[in-house]
């Protein structure tokens, strides 16, 4: 990493290569693909949160007009227990299969019970209504306290808590217990001048991507399937569908469509294997799209949590001990984001004594999926809220309190490794200096500060670069472009090769045309796939030097590559003209054939991302409504390849975090039925809810990446929850520890405080 490096292509605000298609309606998303003969698949879903399936009668439905296939759990193969690796969320293939189609029991309202393929959606819906399912209702378990109670209904009789010294004697709803500790936490609390404790709850929330899950699948009589899917990871669709259907990986080709948002929610599969099976049964291509209601009820939201945080500090703000008790709802199957939540909770702070205990808890809700920095927003909301209380009690500025304890390069993170170059302190100092931090506040207004953290991921990526005969460049890689990554890949290829950005095109290839690549998650794409693109470009440059050398009749190591041209090294006595990429490409047939560069890697050293956010809110004391007046997001972004899209990540994460803090929640009735499964009642922020979101990018280069890139996509959602909650407390004078801070809750708290 050379910090003095001058960049040509990266750091500019170029127009993304897929942009024109996306502003003209040409870009084809999941539901936009249709083949000749396509029919439509629909899923019958459980009306109960928890029930035994006594019988399913599909006879009448199968004779309905237009119906070409019906499947139930009995039509799917038995899948053995096996851990899912490589995806963003934790899980087991056996559970994945049971989530795709229920077998003997339904475990949440919306759980798939049967599926129909018919020549129209209306006919498929009519057939679903004709399927008779007899259920024996069971008591639903809908929250952490109920699930963890001694007399709780046990959702899975085969589930014995893991992570304990000995296997327990009884099954339990607690799938996993995890512990992280350092030092002597009791001694740390005893040495403190002040000890605070708080219990915080966050509700089930949804990623809220605007495009519902959608796919088109076709399978031939030889058993080879092709699937078009809106997904963050088409290689994971392939492996998941292969497991669920007992097929060979090589018999499934997945073509990623444009993806209309995912935020972690499209890192797993729901309808894809069902569509393949319906296609096999009907002999026709089958298209399946979820309705918005199905997306809420039957895809994977983020965990509801209960977090108990305790912090001890000296009067000067030095932290002496921290403890966390963190319970995360997994939904109907084990595998919440509790572990990353536990690993992040104290990550920004130097503290010699801590104890973190995490619990992965089953409830009768849909199996959670990853949601942007999965696990971190919930636990860090709790910790960052309590730190705000601590700052208040100590009479310290909340940024100063964090500066006093901030981790820096060389510190051992609470979750294990030593931090390399990081920019947390820089973010805190920038926040303190930011003009928004000293804007005077009016009556009923308050300002709140919070920090955010996310590890960021590396993992496996592949890339190929083809040099076309006119010297233009085609990059082939395997990460669906969820927010502008084609642009960043093209910019990095252009930078490395020394050619203009406009001469590079990026193709997101299917599972048979790109090398294996992990999912678009973990903020890994610009870092890891970008590194593969850079390495593939270096492969091209090496080949070009050899081609030039053979053209000139000198040794390959006597050639340099500069500004997109092969030139003899200084001092080499060769009277030759530089050869551009176009020169070499047009002559490729005579120098060894086509120019094809490639790289595959398992990227290490993803630089962690730190952020500091602060928000100003105003409370309407008559209604309890909180309005966000200003929001400032400051983050260490390593090196911004495309600054506009990096700012966009900070702004979009802020908006999602504000929604999580202020409004969003799954509302369940006593029977475990979600009562607000639509965008009218599950209200995500709209344009008139938000102010402009000010951003400041801090660039502390990640030493593990050639350009200093660190992931930027997930960190932005972590800090807003506590920033808003802390601002709300400052504005109202009342600390509310349960999210969301919706008008009725705020109003009730104000009335309670006044009485």
């Amino acid at each position, binding site marked *: 990493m050379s910090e003095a490096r001058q960049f040509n292509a990266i750091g500019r*605000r170029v*127009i*993304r290569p*897929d*942009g*024109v298609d*996306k*502003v*003209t*309606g*040409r*870009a*084809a*998303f999941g*539901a*936009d693909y249709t083949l000749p003969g396509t029919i439509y698949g629909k899923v019958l879903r459980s009306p109960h949160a928890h029930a035994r399936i006594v019988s399913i009668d599909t006879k009448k439905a199968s004779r309905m007009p237009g119906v070409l296939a019906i499947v139930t759990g009995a039509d799917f193969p038995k899948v053995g227990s096996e851990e899912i690796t490589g995806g963003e969320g934790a899980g087991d293939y056996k559970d994945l299969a049971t989530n795709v189609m229920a077998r003997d029991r339904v475990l949440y309202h919306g759980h798939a019970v049967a599926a129909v393929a018919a020549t129209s959606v*209306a006919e498929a819906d009519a057939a679903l209504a004709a399927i008779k399912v007899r259920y024996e209702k069971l008591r639903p378990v809908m929250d952490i306290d109920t699930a963890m109670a001694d007399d709780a209904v046990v959702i899975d009789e085969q589930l014995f808590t893991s992570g304990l010294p000995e296997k327990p004697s009884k099954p339990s709803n607690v799938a996993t217990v995890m512990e992280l500790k350092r030092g002597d936490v009791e001694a740390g609390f005893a040495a403190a001048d002040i000890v605070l404790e708080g219990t915080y709850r966050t509700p089930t929330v949804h*990623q*809220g*991507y*605007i*495009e*519902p899950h959608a796919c088109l699948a076709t399978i031939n009589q030889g058993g080879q399937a092709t699937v078009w899917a809106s997904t963050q990871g088409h290689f994971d669709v392939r492996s998941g569908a292969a497991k669920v259907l007992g097929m060979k990986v090589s018999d499934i080709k997945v073509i990623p469509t*444009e*993806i*209309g*948002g*995912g*935020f972690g929610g499209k890192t797993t599969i729901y309808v894809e294997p069902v569509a393949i099976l319906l296609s096999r049964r009907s002999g026709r291509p089958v298209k399946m*799209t979820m*309705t*918005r209601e199905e997306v809420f009820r039957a895809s994977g939201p983020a965990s509801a949590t209960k977090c108990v945080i305790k912090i001890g500090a000296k009067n000067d703000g030095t932290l002496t001990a921290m403890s966390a008790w963190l319970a995360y709802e997994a939904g109907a199957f084990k595998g919440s984001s509790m572990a990353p939540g536990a690993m992040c909770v104290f990550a920004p702070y130097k503290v010699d004594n801590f104890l973190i205990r995490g619990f992965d808890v089953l409830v009768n809700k849909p199996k959670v999926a990853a949601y942007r920095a999965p696990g971190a927003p919930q636990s860090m909301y709790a910790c960052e809220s309590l730190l705000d209380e601590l700052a208040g009690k100590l009479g310290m500025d909340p940024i100063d309190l964090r500066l006093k304890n901030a981790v820096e390069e060389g510190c051992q993170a609470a979750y294990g490794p030593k931090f390399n170059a990081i920019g947390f302190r820089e973010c805190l100092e920038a926040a303190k200096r930011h003009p928004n931090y000293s804007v005077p506040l009016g009556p009923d207004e308050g300002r709140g500060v919070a920090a955010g953290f996310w590890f960021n991921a590396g993992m496996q990526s592949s890339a190929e670069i083809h040099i076309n005969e006119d010297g233009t460049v085609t990059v082939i890689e395997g990460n669906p472009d*969820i*927010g*502008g990554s084609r642009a960043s890949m093209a910019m990095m290829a252009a930078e490395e090769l020394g050619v203009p950005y406009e001469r590079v095109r990026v193709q997101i290839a299917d599972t048979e045309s790109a090398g294996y690549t992990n999912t678009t998650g973990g903020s890994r794409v610009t870092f890891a796939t970008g590194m593969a693109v850079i390495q593939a470009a270096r492969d091209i440059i090496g080949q070009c030097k050899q081609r030039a050398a053979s053209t000139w009749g000198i040794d390959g190591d006597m050639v340099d590559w500069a500004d997109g041209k092969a030139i003899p090294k200084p001092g080499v006595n060769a009277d030759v003209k530089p050869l551009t990429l176009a020169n070499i490409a047009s002559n490729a047939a005579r120098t060894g054939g086509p120019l094809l560069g490639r790289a595959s890697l398992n990227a290490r050293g993803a630089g962690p991302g730190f952020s500091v956010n602060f928000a100003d809110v105003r409370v309407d004391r008559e209604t309890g409504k909180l309005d966000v007046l200003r929001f400032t997001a400051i983050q260490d972004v390593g090196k911004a390849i*495309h600054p*506009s*899209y990096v*700012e*966009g990540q900070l*702004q*979009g*994460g*802020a*908006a*999602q975090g504000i929604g999580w803090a202020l409004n969003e929640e799954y509302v369940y009735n006593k029977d475990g039925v979600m009562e607000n499964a*639509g*965008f*009218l009642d599950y209200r*995500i*922020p*709209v*344009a*008139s*809810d*938000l102010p*402009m*979101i000010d951003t400041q990018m801090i660039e502390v280069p990640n030493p593990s990446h050639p350009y200093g890139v660190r992931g930027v996509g997930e960190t932005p959602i972590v800090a807003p929850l506590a920033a808003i909650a802390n601002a709300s407390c400052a504005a109202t004078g009342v600390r509310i520890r349960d999210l969301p801070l919706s008008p009725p809750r705020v109003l009730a708290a104000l009335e309670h405080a006044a009485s």
Partner: protein
Amino acid sequence: MAKVHVSTSVNGQHTEFLCEPNESLLDVLRENLQLTGTKEGCATGDCGACSVTIDGTLVCSCLVLGVEIAGKEVGTIEGIAKGDVLHPIQQKFLEHAALQCGVCTPGLIVATKSLLDSNPKPTEEEIRYYLAGNLCRCTGYDKIVRAVQDAAQTMRGKRA
């Protein structure tokens, strides 16, 4: 149900189709006319991804029946650019990076055009309230609002 024959105009082109009486305009556009630029995000009128205009009025096409557009003029995202020239709103969305995943973008561009056709110089607040029916989950709206402001300025310059 017997299908209904509908004669209409879509993006200035005379268009005829058959549809079920209960079929939404959104489904007619996407399935019958293969105009898939109009997106379905919710089918309940809450997200605006299916925004189109009918005789110049902005609507959610999921809340309109296909049979209702007989004799009317429908405007969709496919009709915004003229030939190979992007509309200034489209150009400004690109320049401001006002899209990330891009699935809400067609609806937002149709809605923005409807706004600027009736109000060439909207305030930030007017923009935010006019576009409040178009959900975007990626951007936080900041760059969208800026793109709309810039497009408005460009369009005013062209008119002058």
